[in-house]
């Protein structure tokens, strides 16, 4: 039996989500996963109002990236009963099952390691052999990164296992967002909250929130607004990728590249500051249109700035990536193979560096990417060098994209600035919608349902970091412990995106 086929940003009726018995549900999931589908989200969702306290609705969202379609189905489980785990056969479920076990008390039998995802007081695996030793790093780190604890079990310099303990950043932001939406708080406040779900991809989250509301309310923004949104997303991607490359160069003590790239990043985020008053692109997105439009000066400055950045960036990175000592340092460091990337459901940079072309901008195109698609480049090695090089390529792609969009900049057809931009529109009742945007780390997926009173009933947000943290710990296996900082920087995952 086929599941309900959905598409990015397309609104469907809530009744169309098929219901399956649990064993049937799991069997069909494994059928789909064997047929080149991958898991996007697996979570509890509130589908019916006023339900039994012990009954939970589980939803699985699977994606076929080649045909841009998404499959959705739900099942019902009783939290007093044990549920067979899918993790042993499909490890990409392991993280989601751990989250469900922690948040809803669902007991998955035969799960290899049902440790709570965001509990900071849970003990670690302890080696019994005296030959092995453990090294703990964090939660307070040197430098300016978020809190998280890493526990290495090592044999000399070789890492045998890495256990990552997060949860220091758990703020309940998803529940707060839902509460704000239900209380009908002012939209500026909700946007500010959405932008701070993950502070360094605030543009991507604001973009996601805009398209969630627009698809639920059947609003179609002007093409010029979509273009500006695309430009903003790509500006954020350029800035963050340059910052990541700078951090990688700093970790291998290649100081000049690090300093120059930091200066370039400032050039990009200062451009955002000049446009919207925030270096991280905050307070810009709206519903139906954006809060600001570009004038001729802005476009000209941006074009000049980007051409300048591109010239410097290519010069700096050509030097960096062709330096023999850099190649020796980064190549074959923490290899993450394509097989692992596939079964662990990796997205974003780590998937592309391992040879999986997963990118929402071409797989599930939205907004301006329908007209100006960006195809994902892939490398097959899966080492730190590939992950850095993918960033180098993506920055160039993004600059090219922005310059192209600026050249064919659509004119605003209807002037809707007299419309209230920051007013919550009326949503469609009893419907659901899947929205995926590509942040700089990877795809940010969301699933939203509305109830019969045209209010938002429940929301699921999956940050790319949820998928990819597991990838980091697998990539570290059998590599040297001194390679961890640079491997961590090459993944550059979000702590607060994982903890929500």
């Amino acid at each position, binding site marked *: 039996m086929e599941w309900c086929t959905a598409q990015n940003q397309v609104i469907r009726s809530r009744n169309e989500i098929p219901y399956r018995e649990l064993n049937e549900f799991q069997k069909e999931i494994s059928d789909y996963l064997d047929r080149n589908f991958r898991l996007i989200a697996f979570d509890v969702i509130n589908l019916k109002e006023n339900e039994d306290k012990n009954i939970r609705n589980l939803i699985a969202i699977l994606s076929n990236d080649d045909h841009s379609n998404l499959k959705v189905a739900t099942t019902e489980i009783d939290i007093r009963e044990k549920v067979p785990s899918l993790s042993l056969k499909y490890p990409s479920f392991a993280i989601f099952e751990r989250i469900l076990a922690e948040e809803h008390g669902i007991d998955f039998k035969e799960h290899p390691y049902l440790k709570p995802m965001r509990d900071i007081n849970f003990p670690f695996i302890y080696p019994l052999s005296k030959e092995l*030793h*453990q*090294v*703990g*790093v964090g939660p307070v780190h*040197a*430098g300016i990164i978020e809190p998280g604890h890493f526990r290495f079990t090592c044999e*000399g*310099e070789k890492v045998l296992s890495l256990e990552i303990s997060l949860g220091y950043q758990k703020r309940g932001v998803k529940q707060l967002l839902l509460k704000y939406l239900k209380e009908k708080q002012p939209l500026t406040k909700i946007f500010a909250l959405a932008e701070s779900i993950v502070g360094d991809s605030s543009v991507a989250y604001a973009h996601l929130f805009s398209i969630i509301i627009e698809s639920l309310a059947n609003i179609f923004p002007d093409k010029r607004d979509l273009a500006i949104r695309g430009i903003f997303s790509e500006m954020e991607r350029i800035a963050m990728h340059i910052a990541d490359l700078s951090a990688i*160069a700093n*970790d*291998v*003590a*290649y*100081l*000049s590249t*690090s*300093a*120059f790239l930091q*200066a370039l990043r400032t050039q990009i985020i200062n451009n955002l500051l000049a446009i919207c008053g925030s270096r991280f692109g905050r307070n810009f997105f709206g519903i139906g249109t954006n809060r600001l439009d570009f004038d001729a000066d802005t476009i000209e400055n941006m074009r000049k700035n980007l051409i300048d950045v591109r010239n410097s960036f290519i010069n700096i990175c050509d030097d960096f990536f062709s*330096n023999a*000592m*850099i190649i*020796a*340092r980064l190549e074959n*460091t923490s290899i993450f193979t394509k097989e692992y990337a596939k079964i662990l459901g990796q997205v974003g940079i780590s998937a592309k560096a391992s040879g999986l072309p997963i990118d929402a901008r071409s797989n599930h195109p939205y907004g301006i990417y329908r007209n100006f698609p960006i195809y994902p480049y892939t490398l097959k090695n899966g080492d730190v060098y590939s992950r850095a090089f993918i960033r180098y390529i993506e920055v160039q792609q993004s600059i090219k994209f922005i310059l192209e969009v600026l050249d064919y900049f659509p004119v605003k057809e209807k002037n809707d600035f007299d419309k209230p931009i920051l007013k919550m529109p009326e949503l469609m009742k009893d419907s659901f919608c899947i929205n995926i945007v590509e942040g700089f780390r990877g795809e940010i997926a969301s699933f939203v349902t509305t109830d019969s009173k045209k209010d938002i009933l429940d929301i699921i947000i999956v940050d790319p970091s949820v998928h990819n943290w597991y990838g980091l710990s697998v990539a570290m296996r059998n590599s*040297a*412990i*001194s*390679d*961890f*900082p640079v491997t961590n920087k090459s993944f550059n995952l979000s702590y607060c995106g994982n903890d929500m």
Partner: protein
Amino acid sequence: MKEFIYFLLKIILIIFSPPLMIGIINRVKAIWAGKYGQSILQPFYDIIKLLRKKTIRSNTSSFVTTFALPLQFVSNLIALLLIPFGKIKPFISFEGDFFFFIGLLGLSTFCQIIMAMESAGSFQGMGASREINFSIFIEPAIILLFSSMIFYTKSYSMNKMLMEFGFLSLEKIMVGVILGISFFLLILIEGKRIPIDDPATHLELTMIHEAMILDLSGKDLAIAIYSGYLRIFIFSLITSNIFIPTFISTNLSILFLILIIMFISIVVGAIESLFPRVRMNHIPDFMLLVLSLSVIIIALMFTMNT
């Protein structure tokens, strides 16, 4: 009177040159990265700041830290007293003192390692194991380098050895170049500079030397840092002594010495800006480079003898 001036000059050089070298290195790195950079005197300020701070020790540390830390500092200092400054005699000199010199360096490394092990942190243990692993390759190299110098100067004290080794004489220029390069590489290795270890890093997992002093604070840290500076200065002094020609006057040799040490600082700064760190498991390759250079010198020695 002249002797007294030289005596004062040596003391001034010993106290002020090591932090000044680090200041110059940091300044060169900053300029290379397009920054204005900190003052050349910043290492002095750092040490003075640390000396004013309160010292906190790990709960697990015992009398070992109390005696190992001064011992490490003093052994580095005495090793420095064995080396001539250009054509000025060193403070201490006797036949066969190069063995004493190597022993002192070993003692200082040993003190640092037991001090690191004692604080019982996982990073310190890791740093200590790396340090001991890599210093194995260095000691034989230093012995071989000194023995080649003994062969050419026929003297067993470091004073005569370094003073009489004429770099510019025709038969020694090849050996001189290799010796100079070897001792220069030893500056990077013993000073824990960039291709080996990053002195500016904040990443606990990749540190070698920094990991070992991670648990020290206040005056303890000031002493440990100054010992590290002395280590760099010792090897820069040996390197510059090799490059000073034999035929110049004593006063000129001091000028030469200061210029060469400044040049060495600039070159170290440039190397730190131009090269990234090598991977941890490739560091022994770097050490073996020095060892193989010393073996080449010995081979040259035999070919010239026959």
